[in-house]
């Protein structure tokens, strides 16, 4: 029996609504934290899915944007909590603990960085693109490690979660509501984008770059814009992730994290709307439940992931709907 992708998507959203509500009733706050983690990782991966799934650019350095989002939050909140001034050359600020401003800063900064990284990286393609984005990731990673002002390798702790008007973000379900809403918004945008002329052109640029050029479109510009949008979304996710943990550290820039984001997408299904969401949920659930079974749970995780690739072409969504995903 094959499932229609639409139902699957609906089911997934319903699940993400129901599970935390149940957790509130059953007084299982950690379940909420877990789901929040999955939702934030999903958000980051949705960002990556734009370049990877639609545009076919395998960015192995998306942790850069995740990390920038994280550090944007960390730095702003750090200055706000220590009442120290943040000198930004032209002007000085006291930092802020106001989420929307933090998000904006996170998205703008990571979008800008994505612009420059994209500009340089998009000269290459295929495996070289994978590696040059990795190179940028590593540069940021090592930079963060030695950035003593903000904790270096130790990272930065923010003692209280940042504020959102009208909500008490310290209550897990309320913070979850914020993350979930943002995920839904971004998913909606993703769906529109994918079907829009821009999405179609980007998708075409993945499959046949010369074709796109000969109809008078500039694949480089399409890809670059996609990269910027993608970076900004992943940056937003990074800011949320930092807020979830009330902590940022260079591991947010690590290549393992970039790799994990890619893995999430493949598990769910490349280029699928819900691919990253399903991938993130499954991954987080596996990580959690397998960890309780045995010390050597990585072995089991590995075996399960292997089965997903071998038997589910097009990830779990491919397995359930019987349709292959985008070829990247």
């Amino acid at each position, binding site marked *: 029996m094959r499932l229609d992708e639409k139902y699957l998507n609906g089911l997934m959203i319903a699940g993400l609504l129901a599970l935390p509500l149940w957790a509130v009733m059953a007084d299982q706050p950690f379940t909420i934290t877990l789901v929040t983690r999955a939702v934030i990782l999903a958000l980051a991966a949705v960002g990556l899915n734009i370049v990877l799934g639609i545009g076919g650019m395998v960015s192995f350095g998306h942790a850069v944007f995740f990390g920038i989002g994280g550090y944007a939050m960390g730095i702003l909140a750090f200055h706000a909590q220590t009442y120290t001034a943040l000198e930004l050359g032209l002007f000085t600020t006291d930092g802020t603990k106001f989420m929307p401003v933090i998000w904006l800063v996170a998205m703008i900064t990571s979008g800008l960085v994505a612009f420059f990284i994209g500009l340089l990286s998009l000269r290459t393609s295929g495996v070289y693109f994978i590696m040059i984005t990795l190179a940028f990731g590593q540069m940021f990673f090592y930079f963060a490690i030695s950035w003593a002002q903000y904790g270096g390798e130790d990272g930065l702790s923010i003692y209280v979660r940042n504020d959102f008007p009208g909500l008490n973000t310290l209550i897990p379900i309320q913070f979850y509501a914020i993350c979930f809403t943002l995920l839904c918004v971004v998913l909606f945008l993703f769906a*529109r*984008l994918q*079907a*829009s*002329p*821009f*999405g*179609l*052109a980007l*998708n*075409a640029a993945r*499959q*046949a770059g*010369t*074709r*796109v*050029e*000969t*109809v*008078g*479109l*500039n694949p480089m510009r*399409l890809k670059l814009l996609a990269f910027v949008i993608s970076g900004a979304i992943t940056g937003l996710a990074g800011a949320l992730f930092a807020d979830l943990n009330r902590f940022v550290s260079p591991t947010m820039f690590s290549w393992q994290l970039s790799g994990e984001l890619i893995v999430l997408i493949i598990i769910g299904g490349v280029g699928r709307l819900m691919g990253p969401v399903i991938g993130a949920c499954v991954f987080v659930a596996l990580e959690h439940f397998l960890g309780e079974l045995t010390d050597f749970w990585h072995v089991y995780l590995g075996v399960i992931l292997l089965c997903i690739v071998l038997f589910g072409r097009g990830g779990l969504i491919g397995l359930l709907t019987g349709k292959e995903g*985008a*070829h990247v």
Partner: protein
Amino acid sequence: MSDPVLATLNLNKSFGALKATDNVSIDLKPGEIHAIIGPNGAGKSTLIQQICGGLRPDSGQVLLCGQDVSGHSTQARAQAGLGRTFQISQLCMEDTVLENAILGAMGAEGLAWRFWQPALKRPELRDRAEAALERVGLSDDRDICCANLSHGQRRQLEVAVALTLSPRVFVMDEPMAGLGAGGSKRLTGFLDGLRVEAPILLVEHDMDAVFALADRISVLVYGKVIATGTADEIRASTEVRDAYLGDAA
């Protein structure tokens, strides 16, 4: 005589020691089909690549409607009205036939930077795309995924995508290749009618088609134009016969 829509002036291109294009000057006038023939490896595709912006000539110019486009990118030339088909199909294999055509329509309408309304629901794109598919006879296959098309069907789609652009010039690299005998006959008839919309620079090895269609024929050998003339003139040239036609004339 009217001004040429497309012209090359002394184009040169070498690959190492090989002169793939040697001082080529050809032009294309409104309403005509100008066929380029020549042995394999003579440099026809290389010439087309230079005209369309895929390769940068070592020297020489490309003029489109009198304007020098030599320094322009592929996409700029397409926007300026160059519609091209490839010798080896360049299609989005995971997309449907219609989506491939819509992509062309987007290029023509300059509509790639829209992020909201689904591309398939935009009437201006859809109409344009469906009209083009209709003309090459692919209407019934519009929802088939490109990967599931046969070789010949893909060749038809190549032409359809060029049509969606409503270009001022067509540049076609072996559009008949891969079409069956029946398909070639149909396409020949179709191109015959197309020349009034826009002139066609046609590279083709199918001599039946070339002789039936071409107002002028240029023969390219080792990167050089060795002859230009009407079908009869070319057929009569012994030089061309030796280099290319054999006894197909």
